[in-house]
């Protein structure tokens, strides 16, 4: 992963000091609330429902254990001793005091962490495939390119007050594990190094208007990465809507002018910037960034690549089957550690747990950790010979659940318990469903299933791309939940947006509705058929009927009967 230079660290210190001065000017009446808002948001500092929230960027999901321990310490010292992994490879602290944020950022700066552009109407934390650099199916490691763009976009003076937020993702594999189709701008590798090039998608996103990003450029040479991004963002900065917040994302601009016209505008701007020699990148520049990347010592890989299969413990075998992911190095494994389970909001982790996992990563994964889009962690460099020992160590601290990709590995935003934007609570729904499917056998029996829950239209829980999605809506002050079926994130198959099925359910009904749908699946599926395959074969009607049957179990308030229509 990228090792920050002394200059990088100094810039992070500068940034923490700058925020402290801005907060002081606000206190002195020199900055109004409205003037401070974009400045604090660009440091990841929100004012939430109950308290301020600090969002800390984990650049393209890569962490070292000293950083994980620092997060643990900061959460303990300034928050309530826990943090929350988000669906965009960030950590959120939900109870930090505003006046403590500059000091927290100063401490985080020393290990290369920050909140820079993790929020606000600017280019946000750049994300990537959590298995980048270790995936056997990738054309090349996309992280140095993401780092090039991260540096270029940091405090970019022209592009810090965009019409709306702007999310960027990179991937270098045919399978989309970086959710590229739901990003404002996404780069997909199409040719290998040294002549690396990317397919460019622009205008994807979820929210109120979910759109899978169209391809705007079939091939972009890597040297033009910064210049082309500049062109895209300049066109968006100048032409994106600023009169209506819900229509301000770039996807609305692309849709309103059409992909062809948008492409023409970007190409004209690109040509102009390129002619001026702006943002040109050379191989030396890429090599310098690449030289700052430190990988695990792959020589520690096990020589005997069959060791992992030699155990007699069926629970270990099950854990391996679910949580071990393919690795480009023979004798090494990537292990997913789900941060899920009953009584645990998806992605929530205590300071104590962070430290324990950091210790295990030092023992088994050379101190490297990764954060996934599904709110889990990954140990990316575990020798096969150490797998059973790691499994036992994880089991001892409650992190050996063999549920990766199963219903227990569900995704949920913090919802109405924390977020000021939410219409409904996500976490009680997640917990109730987790309880009903606490049995590992039942989860295995259901097979691969992505359940994703958002507390509002902003879709931080990615409900549109869940096989089953749940969206919290407000109806006359009461929380209701719409069900979506048939979405897909792109893992293992093409991405698809789920469709809303019928009227919304009450908080009491929604877990029953999910259970009824899954019961119907178990009853109707053919041998080996996944939930989404069954849904595609049978169509949604049977499942909707099963879900609607639960409505009879409770009496709805009359005002809520039309919710979600």
């Amino acid at each position, binding site marked *: 992963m990228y090792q920050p*230079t002394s*200059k*990088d660290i*100094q*810039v992070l210190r*500068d*940034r923490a*000091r*700058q925020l402290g*001065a*801005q907060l002081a*000017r606000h206190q*002195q*009446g*020199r*900055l109004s609330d*409205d*003037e401070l808002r*974009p*400045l604090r948001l660009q440091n990841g500092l929100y004012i939430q429902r109950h308290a301020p929230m600090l969002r800390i960027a984990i650049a393209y999901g890569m962490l070292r254990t000293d950083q994980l321990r620092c997060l643990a310490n900061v959460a303990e010292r300034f928050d309530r001793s826990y943090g929350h992994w988000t669906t965009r490879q960030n950590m959120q602290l939900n109870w930090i005091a505003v006046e403590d944020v500059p000091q927290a950022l100063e401490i985080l700066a020393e290990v290369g962490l920050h909140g820079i552009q993790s929020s606000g*109407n600017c280019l946000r934390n750049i994300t990537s495939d959590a298995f980048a650099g270790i995936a056997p199916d990738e054309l090349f490691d996309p992280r140095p390119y993401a780092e*090039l763009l991260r*540096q*270029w*976009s*940091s*405090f*970019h*003076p*022209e*592009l*810090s*007050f*965009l*019409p709306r937020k702007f999310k960027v993702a990179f991937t270098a594999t045919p399978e989309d594990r970086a959710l590229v189709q739901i990003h404002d701008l996404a780069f997909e590798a199409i040719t290998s190094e040294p002549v690396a090039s990317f397919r460019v998608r622009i205008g994807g996103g979820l929210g109120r208007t979910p759109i899978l990003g169209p391809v705007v450029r079939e091939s972009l040479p890597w040297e033009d990465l*910064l210049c082309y991004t500049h062109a895209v963002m*300049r066109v968006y*900065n*100048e*032409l994106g809507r*600023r009169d209506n917040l819900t229509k301000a994302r770039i996807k609305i601009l692309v849709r309103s002018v059409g992909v062809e016209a948008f492409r023409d505008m970007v190409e004209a701007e690109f040509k*102009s910037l390129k002619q*001026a*020699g*702006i*943002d*040109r*990148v*050379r191989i*030396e*520049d890429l090599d*310098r*960034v690449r*030289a*700052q990347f430190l990988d695990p010592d792959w020589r520690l890989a096990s020589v005997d690549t069959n060791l992992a299969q030699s155990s007699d413990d069926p629970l270990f075998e099950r854990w391996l089957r679910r949580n071990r992911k393919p690795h480009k190095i023979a004798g090494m494994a990537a292990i997913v550690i789900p941060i899920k389970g009953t009584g645990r909001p998806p992605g929530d982790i205590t300071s104590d747990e962070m430290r324990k996992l950091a210790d295990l990563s030092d023992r088994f994964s050379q101190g490297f950790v990764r954060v996934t889009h599904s709110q889990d962690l990954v140990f990316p460099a575990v020798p096969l010979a150490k797998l059973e020992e790691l499994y036992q160590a994880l089991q001892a601290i409650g992190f050996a659940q063999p549920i990766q990709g199963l219903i227990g590995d569900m995704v949920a935003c913090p919802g109405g318990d924390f977020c000021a934007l939410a219409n409904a609570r996500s976490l009680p729904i997640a917990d109730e469903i987790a309880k009903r499917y606490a049995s590992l056998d039942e989860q295995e029996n259901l097979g691969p299933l992505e359940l994703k829950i958002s507390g509002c239209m902003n879709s931080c829980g990615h409900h549109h791309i869940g096989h089953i999605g749940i969206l919290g809506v407000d109806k006359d002050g009461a929380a209701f939940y719409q069900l979506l079926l048939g979405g897909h994130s792109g893992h293992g198959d093409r991405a698809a947006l789920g469709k809303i099925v019928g009227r919304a359910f009450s908080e009491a009904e929604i877990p029953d509705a999910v259970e009824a749908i899954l019961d119907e699946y178990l009853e109707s599926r053919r041998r080996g058929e996944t939930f989404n395959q069954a849904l595609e074969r049978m169509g949604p009607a049977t499942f909707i009927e099963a879900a609607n049957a639960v409505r009879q179990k409770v009496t709805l308030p009359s005002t809520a009967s039309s919710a979600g229509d």
Partner: protein
Amino acid sequence: MTDLMIDLANASLCAAKIPELRFDASDVERPWLSNINPDDAVALHFGRINDGRGYSLACRLREQHPRLELHAIGHIHEDMIYFLRRCGFRYAHLLDRTNSVVERQAGDELKELLFPFSYEYQLSAGDEQFKKQKVDTTKHLKDISA
């Protein structure tokens, strides 16, 4: 608006003088663009703090006319001057505000506001190197790894 303006290039204050040529930074229709002369003084008016169109417009103008004298007027507060400087504005006319760097003529704080970072990751339209044009725009990448 005070009777002083900030010289963004020199981190100093001087007597305010707003150019005759004034345009709305948020205006997307810009028929006047083709009539700008290379040595003109032009004021761009910022109507709202969150409207970033003025920054792109300034960069665009600087790319075409490196010698242009750009002034920022309108809703401009202290914490915007870093962005203005880097996008090629030469002067900023701040809103009149008690205890501001302009009112207190606080030179040290003005420097901090204009140069908050010990390092800048990208070349931009307000940078000295940029004005020379055709410079090595990737200098930042070399520096950061040095």
